[in-house]
C-alpha cells in the first residue's frame, strides 16, 4: 500500500515529527492560556484578550526582571566568550590542551542547581572568597556577596561565567584548530609577536566561533531559573529577580497561571529573536 520510500520516511521521521508537533501545540496552548483568566486552583480557560499582557506591562516588577536578564545576558556572554577565546588560545599554544580543557569543562558538566549551592557556600561571610581576599590582604574587598542587593546579581552572573567558560573554551579551541596553519606560519615568519598573531590572525578567523557561542550563551542567560531559585529566591528584595523566576513565582506561588504564561510567552518571543537568526545561519553553513 505505502511505497517503500514512504514507509521509510515514516519510520525515520514520524517519531520526531510527532514530538515537535506536540511541542509547537504546547506553545500554542501556553499562548492561549496567557490570554485566559486562569488565576486559581481551578482551570479556567475563558478568553480575555491581551488583558494579562497589559497588567504585566504595567507591573514594575516585569521591568526589573527584564533589566536583570539584559544585564545578565550582556555581562555573561561578553566576558565568557572573550575569556574563552583567550584561554583557548593560550591553551593551544602550550600544546597541553587535554588536561586544561577537562578542568574547565568540569563546571560545565554539573547542574546549575549544584553550581549555585557550591557558590552560596563560597560566597558566605566566612566563605572561601572572603577568606582568600583576607589572606591576600585584600580584606577590604570582602563583602556579603549575595546578601548585598547592589552586587548580588553580579555575584550570580559570575557563577554562570564559571560554569560556561569550559563551553566557550572548547568552541574556540575547535575554531582555532580549524585555522589554516600556513596563515599563522606566515605571520610568524613576518616576525609578528604572539599578541599580534592573536589579534590580527586568530580573532578574525574565529569570528564564527563567536557566532556560535554568543547566541547560545545569551539564550542560557534568558532562561535562568535554577541558580536564582537555589541561591537567592530573587532576593534580596528583587535584586536578583529574573523573568524565569518571576514566571515560576507567578504561576506556582500565586497560582496565576495565565499571568505566568504571559511571562513565559515573552521569554519565548525574545528567545526567538536569538534562535531564528542562529538557526538560519547554521543551516546555511550546513546545507550549502
Amino acid at each position: 500500500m505505502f511505497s517503500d520510500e514512504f514507509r521509510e520516511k515514516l519510520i525515520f521521521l514520524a517519531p520526531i515529527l510527532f514530538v515537535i508537533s506536540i511541542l509547537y501545540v504546547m506553545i500554542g496552548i501556553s499562548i492561549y492560556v496567557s490570554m485566559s483568566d486562569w488565576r486559581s486552583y481551578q482551570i479556567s480557560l475563558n478568553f480575555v484578550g491581551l488583558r494579562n499582557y497589559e497588567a504585566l506591562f504595567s507591573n514594575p516588577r516585569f521591568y526589573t526582571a527584564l533589566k536583570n536578564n539584559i544585564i545578565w545576558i550582556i555581562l555573561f556572554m561578553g566576558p565568557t566568550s572573550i575569556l574563552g577565546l583567550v584561554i583557548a588560545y593560550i591553551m593551544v599554544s602550550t600544546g597541553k590542551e587535554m588536561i586544561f580543557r577537562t578542568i574547565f569543562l568540569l563546571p560545565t558538566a554539573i547542574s546549575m542547581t549544584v553550581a549555585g549551592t557550591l557558590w552560596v557556600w563560597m560566597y558566605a561571610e566566612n566563605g572561601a572568597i572572603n577568606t582568600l581576599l583576607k589572606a591576600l590582604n585584600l580584606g577590604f574587598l570582602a563583602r556579603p556577596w549575595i546578601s548585598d542587593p547592589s552586587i548580588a546579581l553580579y555575584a550570580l552572573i559570575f557563577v554562570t561565567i564559571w560554569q560556561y567558560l569550559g563551553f566557550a573554551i572548547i568552541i574556540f579551541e575547535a575554531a582555532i584548530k580549524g585555522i589554516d596553519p600556513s596563515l599563522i606560519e606566515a605571520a610568524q615568519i613576518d616576525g609578528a609577536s604572539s599578541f599580534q598573531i592573536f589579534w590580527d590572525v586568530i580573532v578574525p578567523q574565529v569570528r564564527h566561533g563567536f557566532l556560535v557561542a554568543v547566541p547560545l550563551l545569551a539564550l542560557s542567560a534568558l532562561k535562568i531559573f535554577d541558580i536564582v531559585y537555589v541561591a537567592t529566591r530573587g532576593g534580596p528584595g528583587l535584586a536578583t529577580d529574573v523573568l524565569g523566576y518571576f514566571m515560576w513565582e507567578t504561576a506556582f506561588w500565586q497560582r496565576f497561571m495565565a499571568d505566568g504564561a504571559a511571562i513565559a510567552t515573552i521569554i519565548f518571543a525574545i528567545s526567538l529573536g536569538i534562535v531564528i537568526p542562529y538557526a538560519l545561519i547554521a543551516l546555511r553553513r550546513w546545507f550549502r
Partner: protein
Amino acid sequence: MSINAKMAIAYALLIFMSLFWMLPFYVALVTSLKSHEETYTTNVLQPPSTIDVTPWISAWKSIERAFFNSIIVSLPSTFLCVMIGTLAGYYLSRHVSRATRTLFFLIAIATFIPYQILLIPMTMFLAHIGVMGTYLSFIIAYTILLSPWAALISSAFFMAIPKELEEASYIDGASALQTFFRVVLPVALPGIISTTIIIFMSIWNEFLFAVTLSTSPLIRTIQPEVANLRGTTTVAWNTLMAGSLIAILPPLIITLALGRYFISGLLAGALRGTR
C-alpha cells in the same frame, strides 16, 4: 621575549586559573569531610584535621531515593530520545530538500525553546492523562523536550560519515532501516555515544521540570532533592556539600572518563560540526 619565557607565563596563567576554577570543588570536598563543629569553626580552605564521613552517610541517606529516581527516569528517557533523534538525524543528513531543510529548521527551533513556555501545558497534559506523580510523567516530559536536541546533535555526526558505505549496502539489497542499523550505526557509534552522553547529562541536570513534576518525596529526582536540602531552616553545610558532590558524581565521572565524547557532542550540538 623568548619562547621559554612566554611558555612559562602561559603555563602560569593557565595553572593559576585552573586552581581558581577548581576551588569550589576543593572547598566542597573539604567541607564535606569535616565534623559539625569543625565546619563552623575552622577556616574554610583548610582540610579537616580528622576526616569525618558522617556527612556523606547522612547526605546519602537523605538523597538515596532521589538518586535512584533520577537514574530510573534518566535512562529510559535518554534511550527514547536517542532512538527518536538518531532515526530523524540520519534521515535528515541523507536527504537534503526544501522539505527536510524546513523540518531541520523547525527541529533547531524546538531544541532551544525555553522550558518556561512549555511548563504549564506540559503539566496540564500530564495531569490530564493521569500520570502526575509517577515516573512516567518524567519520562514522557523529557522525551518530548530533548528528542529534538538528539536529532540535531546526531545529524551533525551522520553528516560526517561518507555515503559510500550505505551505497554498498543498498547494492546488496538491504532496506534503509537495515542499512541504518547494520552499517551506519556501528560506524557512527562515537557520535551516538556523544549524543547519549549529552542527553543523559541534560536530563540529570535539569531542574525546572524536575521540581514541578516531583510531586512526592517518593519520586523526587536528585536536583530538587539537593535544592531541598538547603531547605527553609538552618542547614548543615557539611552534609549539604556532601549531598551536592553525590549529585554531581555521574556527570563528573562521565566528563572524566568520556570527556572526548562529551566535547564532540557539545560541538555538534552547537552546530559547529564535528571537525
